């Protein structure tokens, strides 16, 4: 029952969209089209991502992650999480579960937030897209300016959450 309750709002939404199509209600049809576009992306991409996360969870030992991107990993660790993030794809909400698994395996707070920043702004698949639409100069400048900013955010979050028993939870 509780499970069904969680689906109540999405189901109502889908019924409304269905009715819009039935009665040729243009606004509803357009919203439905938008939704389908987003949903398609999510349903193609997220299961793949979550399988990767699951495999990561069972295979990668905590000690290894902790050593490379943990508390005392320094600049090398920062570089490593940025590299990891830039190779991925998809919208930021896809990165939250990965951030959770990194955290669970001993990644430092700073690197978790640097990972999120890099994931959001400088993913390589996205950058190629950006260059196509806005030009190389724009892309390069934006990347160079954004990079130090989210590293700083990582340091800030680490400092802010230092004594606060912060943890990344599994939803």
């Amino acid at each position, binding site marked *: 029952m509780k499970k069904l309750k969680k689906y109540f709002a*999405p189901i109502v939404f889908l019924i409304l969209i269905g009715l819009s199509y039935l009665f040729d209600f243009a606004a509803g049809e357009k919203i439905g089209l938008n939704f389908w576009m987003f949903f398609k992306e999510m349903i193609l991409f997220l299961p793949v991502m*979550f399988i990767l996360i*699951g495999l990561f969870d069972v295979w990668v030992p905590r000690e290894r992650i902790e050593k490379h991107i943990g508390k005392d990993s320094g600049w090398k660790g920062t570089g490593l999480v940025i590299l990891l993030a830039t190779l991925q794809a998809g919208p930021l909400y896809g990165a939250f579960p990965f951030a959770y698994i990194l955290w669970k395996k001993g990644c430092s707070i700073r690197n978790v937030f640097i990972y999120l920043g890099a994931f959001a702004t400088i993913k390589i698949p996205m950058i190629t897209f950006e260059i196509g639409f*806005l030009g190389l100069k724009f892309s390069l400048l934006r990347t160079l300016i954004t990079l130090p900013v989210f590293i700083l955010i990582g340091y800030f979050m680490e400092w802010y959450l230092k004594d606060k028993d912060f943890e990344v939870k599994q939803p």
Partner: protein
Amino acid sequence: MKLLSVITALFLFFSLMADRRKTWNGIVKGMTMFLKLLPMLMLMLALVSIVLFLIPNETLVNYMGKGSGVKGWFTAAALGSIALIPGFIAYPLCGILIKSGVAYSIIVVFITTLMMTGFLTLPVEAKFFGWKVSLIRNLISLAAALFIGFIMGFFL
């Protein structure tokens, strides 16, 4: 997307070769997480679709176009912060905006907030980081986006 699928397929293959049970455990773990998030994600996507419908491209150009000044910055930051929108939608839109005369620094604010801050996605984010930390991350990212736009303004 393609890269991610290829990498996952490779990992899956080697994982299956090495240990079937472990692989299965991993897949179940991942999928359980996915199914737990799914209703929330669907709701969020529904809201984003509605917002996107309510704000057509012409309106964006109107508010952020030439001579929009502070209003343009404010609009870019506010609209960009509503949701996390994937690049494949954001970039074509920004291409249109640039052609319609929107300044580069405003585009940067728009893109950065689109990608880094999402107030509609907060409930999803809060499930992982808690409300307070999620809110702080979003607010800092918003400030960072404005800063990045400001700096970009000197170059482009």
